């Protein structure tokens, strides 16, 4: 469905008048910016160094960090779930849970898999869940940030409503910083792909320093955040 636009012409005409020229709505191309300091950050870092940076940064954003491999990920995830007080769990409908052979574990737990046909029930499940578990699409080492692409199979509520958020991070998803994630999204756009209606860049648990600048962890979203980095197969 296409949307609508109101009052654009007079609004833009007023802007152009104040800028002292006719209205321009086409033909502007992006300049080559004189500086690009964002490309320098962790430029030479190896994949292992990116993992180290991510681990270090997790300490600063109150996030528990685990490093494991594909044979141990099930065991490690189980430990994390138990430490966080077990289910109910909520997960997106995502093939990677099978690829990493996590289905059995999740079956044993009280796990709800996001099902868009169930409508509002998904949100109620997310609200009651203790833990939401996601896979990071891209992971930013500099800031310890996971990137989530939401869709009909991956509700926004999974990473916001439960008390805890566990994100599984395939090592190959780790990039230096937001610069590389932005470039990847832009290349989707230039290939004509439709970008998701909601892209989250999530760094640790929800927090606020609005009362006397004292950091309180867990305001509206999750109170605890755990990342599990998995060495690629």
């Amino acid at each position, binding site marked *: 469905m296409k949307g609508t636009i109101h009052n654009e012409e007079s609004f833009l005409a007023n802007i152009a008048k104040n800028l002292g020229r006719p209205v321009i709505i086409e033909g502007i191309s992006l300049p080559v910016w004189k500086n690009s300091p964002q490309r320098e950050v962790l430029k030479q870092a190896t994949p292992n160094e990116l993992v180290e940076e991510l681990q270090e940064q997790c300490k600063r954003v109150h996030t528990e960090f685990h490093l494991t491999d594909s044979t141990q990920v099930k065991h490690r995830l189980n430990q994390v779930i138990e430490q966080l007080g077990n289910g109910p769990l909520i997960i997106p409908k995502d093939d990677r849970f099978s690829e990493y052979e996590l289905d059995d574990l999740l079956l044993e737990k009280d796990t709800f898999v996001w099902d868009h046909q169930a409508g509002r029930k998904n949100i109620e499940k997310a609200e009651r869940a203790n833990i939401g578990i996601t896979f990071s699409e891209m992971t930013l080492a500099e800031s310890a940030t996971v990137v989530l692409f939401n869709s009909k199979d991956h509700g926004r509520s999974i990473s916001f409503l439960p008390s805890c958020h566990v994100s599984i991070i395939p090592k190959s998803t780790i990039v230096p910083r937001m610069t590389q994630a932005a470039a990847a999204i832009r290349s989707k756009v230039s290939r004509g792909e439709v970008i998701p209606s909601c*892209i989250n860049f999530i760094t640790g648990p929800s927090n606020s320093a609005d009362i006397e600048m004292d950091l309180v962890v867990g305001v509206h979203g999750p109170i605890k955040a755990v990342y599990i980095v998995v060495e690629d197969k």
Partner: protein
Amino acid sequence: MAMKTSSAKFKERVDEGLHNDFMRMAVSSAQERLHGRRLTAVDELGNWEDWRSLGQEIRQHVLANLDFYLHQLAENVSKRGGLVFFAETAEEASGYIKDVIVNKKAKKIVKSKSMVTEEINLNAALEAIGLDVVETDLGEYILQVDDHDPPSHIVAPALHKNKEQIREVFKEKLGYTQTEKPEELTAHVRGILRKDFLSADVGITGCNFAIAETGSIGLVTNEGNADLVTALPKTQITVMGMERLVPTFDEFEVLVSLLTRSAVGQRLTSYITALTGPRDEGDVDGPEEFHLVIVDNGRSSILGTEFQSVLQCIRCAACINVCPVYRQVGGHSYGSIYPGPIGAVLSPLLGGYDDFKELPYASTLCAACTEACPVKIPLHDLLRKHREVIVEKEKMAPFSEKMAMKAFGIGAASPMLYKFGSKMVPSAMSPFKTGDSISKGPGPLKSWTESREFPAPGKESFRDWFKNREKGGNPS
């Protein structure tokens, strides 16, 4: 709350600020923390000046081609099924939003923090027709519960209140029975607001940066409240100041990095979200209907003038966190929703000289604000330009004009850094110096020095001083 937050005279407001010791303690400690965090976050990059130059270049390019990028944004929002409304005035903007809400027969509205909705007085317009509007940013919520106490800072709106005061407010208004521990106060609010998120009909947000190429709205928070405001209600209304956009995701990420480091000294905040259109087909959460309201409200008349660069502002409050005047008088003294140096430049432009003519004088022209600005707005130059306009064109120089000009005038070319992170011109201050303090300050300094001695500017640069201090060196 409109632009103007008080009907008291400037001097009365300043007096009240100067005599509120609670507030002054809270402000100075908050300033120090925010300022220190920012310095750490920018120093670790090692090339902060390149970042600032890039930020400035992006913002200047967007302002010079604002019609092009707004058109591109509107087209792309509409392609994804969004409804775009361009509003010239505050009344048009809040009128449109009111109509949308009335048509939806909505009762409850949840909001995430937005300065532009304060500017257009949206909450009052909605409450006047009996709607329940809930602010969900913790700081804003505290102010709302406290009978709409005005914000005193654009990033930390309740910075002037201490935890005991907040406990008292909660006790009286919310039946709160626990202690003043921030964790307990926060947990209480979490419980209340969770229910509001789940039952709200409409979610209203501001917009940190819109992305023209994709028609996306970028939201930056630590609490995650903007995400719940946009994920759960069926209708989302986003209100943006017309200059708050970037060309593509590439520039978005640069400006977000500048914003989070400058505002709170974080590499990124906990939640940065790019929303494009309403929910996609089949999505369970996210809004069914998405409205984008693009607000002018006086901004276009700043374009093409010597004040155009103020529209580069990304609302990080770094200038507020280094301002020695803000530190002394607090946010409410400015009488505007935009306090501090950015407020002293912006408020007269958006709200008129009649109400805000004193603000350009609530500055020492020390240039700490200019140095802190991540997009290189020459704030102290703009303050001086305001004074010129006020004297020459508006013929309404407020007070101590001659003195202020004499002391701080155009000789502020090679400023020395000031003791607590600000700069000042030692030569200009020297006539007022007695030993190491200033006891009779000119112009706006006068009110403070009536109640306290003001430390005189040293000759050491702030960065040197800060580094020495970290090494355990002499703190002055």
